[in-house]
């Protein structure tokens, strides 16, 4: 349990996936223009990150390592992530069209979210156990969800401000991300990586 807490503090605050590790920036900027969209994206990503983390670990340990195929990690992971995303989308759609409406748009986007591939690769490189990998994926998702939702709420306000032309849109979003990263710098040192 302590590992879990440490991993989550680390992935959410101290080494936030988006703000300090630079993973998942495309959806961070792309899906944050509105709060409800951000909520959908956050939930979908949380789900997929956790699943991908586990799936990646299993594939690596039971398929790649036994045959000495570590070099195929990238290829197999992206394959499995894409399939996973599709499967999750189909299942969600079948179980609850409502949730599908909330998440549906965002699921396909997740394939090209580098946080998902990143979390699987980091698990391998940092040699996490299955349980740790699961927590890591979940924590990464939480961290992503946390900053995405916060950021979306912030952007609802910055969007209505008389921002100088050169800063409108992307530059201001990045500036905001930078200031959030500064704020989160304070959490540095609170947990390992």
């Amino acid at each position, binding site marked *: 349990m302590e590992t879990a807490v440490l991993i989550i503090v680390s992935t959410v605050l101290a080494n936030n996936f988006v703000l300090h590790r630079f993973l998942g920036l495309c959806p961070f900027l792309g899906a944050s223009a*509105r709060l409800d969209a951000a909520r959908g994206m956050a939930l979908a990503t949380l789900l997929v990150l956790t699943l991908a983390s586990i799936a990646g670990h299993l594939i690596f340990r039971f*398929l*790649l390592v036994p045959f000495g*195929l570590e070099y195929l990690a990238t290829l*197999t992971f992206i394959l499995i992530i*894409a*399939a996973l995303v599709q*499967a999750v989308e189909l*299942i969600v759609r079948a179980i609850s069209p409502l949730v599908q409406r909330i998440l549906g748009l965002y699921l396909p986007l997740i394939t090209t979210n580098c946080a998902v591939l990143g979390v699987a690769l980091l698990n391998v490189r940092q040699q996490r156990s299955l349980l740790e990998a699961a927590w890591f994926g979940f924590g990464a998702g939480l961290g992503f969800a946390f900053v995405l939702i916060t950021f979306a709420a912030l952007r609802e306000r910055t969007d209505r401000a008389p921002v100088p032309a050169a800063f409108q849109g992307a530059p201001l979003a990045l500036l905001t991300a930078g200031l959030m990263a500064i704020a989160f710098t304070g959490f540095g040192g609170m947990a390992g990586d």
Partner: protein
Amino acid sequence: MFAGIVVVTLLALGAGAGVLWLRRYLADGTEKLVAAIDNLLPQIQCAQCGHPGCRAYAEALARGATTIDRCPPGGERTQLALAELLGDAPGGAPLPSPARTHLARIDEAACIGCALCLPACPVDAIVGASGFLHTVIAAECTACELCLELCPVDCIALVPRPEHPVSTA
């Protein structure tokens, strides 16, 4: 050495087959989406979107068979609402609707009572019968213009809605 090829190929096969299997065995919930889309359309039923009525357009949208910028009466407002629901980017702006500002009026002096315009009105806003004078029910007309071209004596025109209808007798 060939293990790599085998593993990747099998994985691709498995993933592809799995997704296809899932797709076949799981139903989808398009119905609710259609209802949600239909709810956002202006219900003018003018067919300017290229579909026979708003519901048909909603179905086409849910199938992904058309784009969200096809409904002129809805204007920018509807397009933004659809973009929000469907996650598409709003595209070119459709023509703004005349509906709020205009209505059809039949020049009663010119009307010959041919009744040609009757079946064209999608909301039954024209009353009258063959051989009699026709009128448009102001409160119901959506200004869809479908009736205008049908009149053989060109007696129907869109006119601005009176802004402050003074209800003196």
